[in-house]
Structure formats: structure tokens, C-alpha cells
């Protein structure tokens, strides 16, 4: 019996969704052949959504590293998790390109990943990853309705679409249904900020 068989989710469905997510993530980085999306040029406080999202994706990449390194997942699951992490890296690169020199760097923060329970490592890691993906998708959703610049709005919309698939893949992996009843609701930056800050500590090298 394969170690992954003990979980209740539909493996075939999960792997198909994982493949679709990877393909979707690719669309973020590669302009569609039919119509070039408008170049994002955040106006005024539009930058708040881009900055938040870039930092959240930075955390997501780090959390993804913990997931892919964990023996709590099968080899096939880890491949899909790796693809999800690659998608996050693409999101981060796209957002960093918009922010330029103001883009967050790994050295700017100490990324604090909540301690996963040793007793139920798999569930704990997935709960953290799902929570973060829900938060990011909610902020993308909020940003789509709020930003002034059309290019930034388009970018956030594309990222929302990709993040929703990412979230679905994580939910299936956790034995929960994929997002079937619509996208996650919008999350305001005010509400999202303290939740993201739980992952961030000051970067403090030794004296």
C-alpha cells in the first residue's frame, strides 16, 4: 500500500488540479498570445496591494519549502507541492518587477513559520498553507475591486485566479473539497495585515 493511500482525498482529482494549477501559474509569467495585458503602474496607494502580495508570496515560498521537504507527503504530492511553490515564485517575480527596488527581499525579514505539530505534521502544515493561501486570495480579491490602475487590476485578477487554484489544490490535499462555491471573499488590508505579520520578524543578524 502506498503511504499516500491512507488519506481521504481523491488523488486523481488532486493531481489533475495540481497540473492545472501549474499550467495556470505559467500564464502569470507568460503574456497571452491574443492580447498583451496592460503594464501595471500602481497609482498612489495601489502599491499597498502589490507590496502586501509580494511579501505574502515571499512567505508562501518559504512555507512551500517546508511542505516540499516534509516526509508527511508522498513523492507525487511533493512534486505537486513543488509545482505550487514554483507558481508562488513566479507570482513573486511578477510582483517584484512592478515594485522595482522597493520589492521586499528575503533579508528584510526573518520569516517565522508557525511550529507544525509533531503529532500531526501533515495537517498542521496544510492548515498553515491553506490559511495563507486564503488570506492572499482574499487580498487579491479586495485589490481587484479597489485599485485605480487598470494594469495593476489585471495583474491582481490573474494572480487571484491562480491563487484560487493553488488554494483548491491545498484543500484537496487536506481532504477538503476544492473551492466549489465561488472564490474566497475579499479580505481588507487592515484585517490581513496582522495575520501576515505573524509570519514576519525583524531581520537581526548577530552583533
Amino acid at each position, binding site marked *: 500500500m502506498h503511504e499516500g493511500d491512507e488519506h481521504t482525498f481523491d488523488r486523481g482529482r488532486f493531481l489533475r488540479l495540481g497540473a492545472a494549477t501549474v499550467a495556470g501559474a505559467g500564464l502569470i509569467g507568460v503574456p497571452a498570445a491574443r492580447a498583451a495585458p496592460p503594464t501595471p503602474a500602481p497609482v498612489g496607494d495601489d502599491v499597498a496591494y502589490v507590496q502586501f502580495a509580494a511579501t505574502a508570496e515571499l512567505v508562501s515560498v518559504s512555507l512551500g519549502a517546508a511542505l516540499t521537504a516534509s516526509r508527511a507527503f508522498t513523492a507525487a504530492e511533493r512534486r505537486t507541492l513543488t509545482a505550487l511553490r514554483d507558481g508562488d515564485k513566479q507570482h513573486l517575480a511578477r510582483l517584484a518587477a512592478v515594485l522595482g527596488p522597493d520589492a521586499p*527581499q528575503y533579508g528584510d525579514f526573518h520569516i517565522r513559520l508557525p511550529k507544525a505539530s509533531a503529532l500531526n505534521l501533515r495537517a498542521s502544515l496544510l492548515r498553515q498553507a491553506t490559511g495563507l493561501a486564503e488570506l492572499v486570495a482574499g487580498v487579491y480579491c479586495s485589490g481587484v475591486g479597489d485599485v485605480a490602475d487598470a494594469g495593476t487590476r489585471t495583474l491582481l485578477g490573474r494572480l487571484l485566479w491562480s491563487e484560487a487554484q493553488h488554494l483548491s489544490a491545498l484543500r484537496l490535499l487536506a481532504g477538503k473539497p476544492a473551492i466549489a462555491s465561488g472564490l474566497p471573499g475579499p479580505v481588507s488590508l487592515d484585517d490581513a*495585515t496582522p495575520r501576515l505579520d505573524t509570519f514576519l520578524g*525583524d531581520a537581526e543578524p548577530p552583533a
Partner: protein
Amino acid sequence: MNRTLAITAVTTAIAAAAPASASAFNVYAASSLSNAFPALTGSPKYNFGGSNTLQTQIEKGAPADVFASASPTEAQALYAEGRCTRPVTLATNTLVLLVPSSNPGRLSSVYTLRSGGKRLSIGNAGVPIGVYTRKLLARLHLSSILKSNTVSQESNVSQVTSKVALGSADAGFVYKTDALAGGDRVRALTLPRYAQPPVRYQMCAVIRDGANTTAAQSFINRVVSKTGRATLRRFGFGLPPKG
């Protein structure tokens, strides 16, 4: 008698414009370093002020030997002009929202400022603390608070701290180190980490005729030494990676 007074006034004005003599070893540094640097060494003559103001003074020939700015912009500008050596990063910092200890504006977080009607003190747009503050507010989607509150703009961070400590402002954006230096008169409210702009201090040895380059390099070496880093940390600064 009148002539004597006039000479005295002129002499005083010159002294104020050039706070240290050309023959002394002079360190021009951002206001926020005004506690840490003298604790590290008392031997240089210090001139603390807004980084942009100090940069302008050096460009006009002020007798500085070392320049330390609260953002890379000013030091890098002097380096690009051939007026100082390649800048090195000596410290980092973070922004906080400072309120008087009595907190008359009843601020519980930066978001309280959305309600408007408060007296807010910030750095002007030319000085690093002012640039950082505006960047932070944009990242928090809070630039509107600069219109909904009564805003006074100061030319350096020490003036912002003083206004809050004296109760002339309900709140002000300053560096964490200034909040620590403010003691019991003030209280610091933390700001979201993701929105913090990277605050990096840089310093360089000034290149000019008659500059004391040996003393300047010795001072820079002391600041980045183990002792220097420990002193900066003691005053609340963050530290860049070694090397």
C-alpha cells in the same frame, strides 16, 4: 559698542553655519545617530541634522570628514559626485508611531488616524524620515491621513520626536531608536512589518582638500567594529550582515 555686537553676531552666524572648525575632525551625521555616535566615541566634533541638509552643506564645502546619512540616497549622491568614498551600510532601523505617554489623541494604532482631526508630526518630503513615512503610509493604503489630520512637517526626526514629547502633536512617525531615546515622555506604537521600508544608514569619508582621511577611516572602522555594532544595537539599531 554697536560694531562689537555686529561682529559678535556675524561670528555667531558663521559658527552656526559651520559648526566645527576646518582643522578639527568633523562627523556630519543624521539626527537619529545623535545618541549612539557620541556614546561610541566623543573625540570628533559632531554636527547632527537632517541628512539632506548635511549633504547640501558638504556639497557647499562644509568641513566634514565623515558623513553618515539615514538613507543611502544622500551618501550615494555624494559618492556619485566624487565627494566621498564608497558608502558602507552601518545600521538599519524601523519606523514606529510615537505618541505622548498621556496619549491625548487616544491612538491605539496607526489606523486610528483614519478618523482624522489629530495633530500629526512628520518629516518633510526631502528628509529620509519623511520619505520613509510617505512610503510606509502608501504601503498601508493610508496616504489619506495626511489630508484628514493637521500635519506639521519637520526638517529632521529629532524635531518630530520633540513635538510629540512636548505634547505639541498627538502623534509622529519616527525611528524606533528615537522612541527609545524619548524615554518616559513618549510611547511607541508598532507598525506592520510588511509595510516597513528598509531603513539603511550609510556612511563615507568625505573627499575634500584638507580632509582628515586617516581619522575618518579610523572612525568608520570603529563604527563597523564589534564594539561599534554592540553600541548601535544598545541604542536600538538593527545591524547589517557583517562584511
